[in-house]
C-alpha cells in the first residue's frame, strides 16, 4: 500500500446552522478513483471545496502526505487540479488563451501542447473563437482539456461533466481509469452514471441532527 496523498480525519462541517457531515475520515490513495455521492444539498460540493482548500470553515484535520495541509499550502496546491461547477473560462478570451492562462501558473507548456489538448477534447478549429460563442458543453471542454496535460497527481472534479454529451463522458471515464492506472488519484462528484471499475465511494447525507 502506498502512502495516502490526502487524509481527512474527523471532518465536520456546518453550513447555515445545518450539520452537513461529522466524524468523516477517509484517505485518498494514489491510483484510486473516489466518487462522492449523496442527494442534492448533502454537502458534496462543500466537501470537495474543503478537499481543494477553497473552504476553510471546517473542523477536523486535512493532511497532505502525512503532514497537516495548512503547513504546506503551496506544496499541496502544486499537486492539485480542481475543476468546479464554474469552469474558470473567460468568455472574452479564446479557448487557447483561456487554457494558456489556466496553465500558466502551474506547469511549463508550449502552445503546441495546448493546441493538441484542445484538439483532444474535440475543439479543433475552435481555438480562435471567443469562448462566449461556444456552447456550454464546449466551454466545459476547454476546462477539461487541462485533464489531458495535467501532471498533478490529485484531481478534484466537482460536477465537471455537466453539459458534456454521452460520447464525451465515456471518453472522460476512459481517461479517469487510465489516470488511476498510472498512479493519479481522482475524487469526483457527478450526476452522470459513471461506470468505473474499482471505484471508491463516499456517501454523504444521513447525519442525524440530535441537537
Amino acid at each position, binding site marked *: 500500500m502506498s502512502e495516502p496523498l490526502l487524509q481527512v480525519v474527523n471532518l465536520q462541517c456546518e453550513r447555515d446552522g445545518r450539520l452537513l457531515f461529522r466524524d468523516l475520515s477517509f484517505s485518498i490513495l494514489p491510483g484510486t478513483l473516489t466518487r462522492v455521492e449523496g442527494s442534492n444539498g448533502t454537502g458534496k460540493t462543500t466537501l470537495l471545496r474543503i478537499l*481543494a*482548500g*477553497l*473552504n*476553510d*470553515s471546517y473542523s477536523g484535520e486535512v493532511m497532505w*502526505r502525512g503532514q497537516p495541509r495548512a503547513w504546506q499550502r*503551496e*506544496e499541496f*496546491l*502544486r*499537486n*492539485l487540479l*480542481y475543476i*468546479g*461547477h*464554474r*469552469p*474558470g*473560462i*473567460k*468568455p*472574452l*478570451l479564446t479557448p487557447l*488563451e483561456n487554457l*494558456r*492562462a*489556466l496553465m*500558466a*501558473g*502551474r*506547469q*511549463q507548456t508550449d502552445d503546441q*501542447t495546448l493546441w*493538441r*489538448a484542445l484538439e*483532444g*477534447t474535440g475543439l479543433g478549429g475552435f481555438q480562435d473563437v*471567443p469562448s462566449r460563442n461556444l456552447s456550454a458543453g464546449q466551454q466545459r471542454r476547454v476546462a*477539461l482539456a487541462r*485533464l*489531458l*496535460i*495535467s*501532471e*498533478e*497527481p490529485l484531481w478534484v472534479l466537482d460536477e465537471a461533466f455537466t453539459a458534456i454529451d454521452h460520447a*464525451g463522458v465515456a*471518453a*472522460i471515464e*476512459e*481517461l479517469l481509469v*487510465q*489516470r488511476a492506472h*498510472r*498512479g*493519479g488519484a481522482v475524487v469526483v462528484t457527478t450526476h452522470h452514471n459513471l461506470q468505473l471499475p474499482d471505484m471508491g465511494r463516499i456517501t454523504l447525507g444521513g447525519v442525524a441532527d440530535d441537537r
Partner: protein
Amino acid sequence: MTAEATVTITIRSEASSIGVLPAMWAVLMRDLQGAFRQRQDLLNPLLFFVMVVSLFPLGVSPAPAFLKEAGGGILWVAALLSVLLSLDHLFRHDYDDGTLEQLVLQPQPLFLLLLAKTLGHWVVTALPLVLLTPLLGVMMQLEGSSIAVLCLTLLIGTPVLSLIGSIGAALTLGLRSAGVLLSLLIIPLYIPVLIFGTGTVTAAADGAAVSAYMALMGAFLVLALTLAPFASAAALRISLSNS
C-alpha cells in the same frame, strides 16, 4: 480523449513549479487582454471622470478664479469616485466565471497574484484618468506647474486607491448588492489620500514647496503596496470559503 504520452504523474516539488514572476505576468496579461476585448468598458470610468469635471464649470461657476481655486480638488474627487465605481468589477466577473477559484488555487503566494491583478485593474481604470488630467487641468484654468504636480499626485495616489479598494472588493464579494457597503467601507480609508493629494496641489498653486507632501504620498503608496495585498488575499479566502 487521450492524455498526452509525455505527461508524467509525480509529486511535484518546488523545482518543477512556475516562478512567482511569470505567474504574476500571466495574471496581468489575461486581465489586460480581456479588458481590451471589451473596449467600451474601458471608456466608462473615463467618461464618468470627464463628465463630473466638466459639469462643475457649468453648474457652479465658469469664473477662472473659482476654477483655479477648486480645479485640483474637483479633479481629485472625480478620480476618486471613478476608481470607486470601477472597484466592484475587480473580482466580480472572475468570481462569477470561476477563474477566481483557480487563481486562489495557484501554487504561488496569493497576495502577489492579487497585486498583479490590482495592477492590471489600475492600468485599465485609473491610468487613463491620469493621462487625461493635463487636458482637464487646462480646462480648469490650472497653471502648468500645478497641472504637473496634480498629475504626479494622481499617479502616486490612484494606485493607493486601487490597492485599498481591492480589500473592500474582496470583502464584499459574496454579497449580492455590495455597492453601498463597499463605498461605506472604503471611503473613510480614501479620505487621507484625498486630503494630502489636494493639499499638494494647493501648495503647488500657492508656490510653496511640495516635497514634504510628495514624500507623504509616497509613504501612502509604500504602505498600501506592502499591506493591502495581504489584507485582500485574506479577505478573498474568507469570501470564497463562504460561497
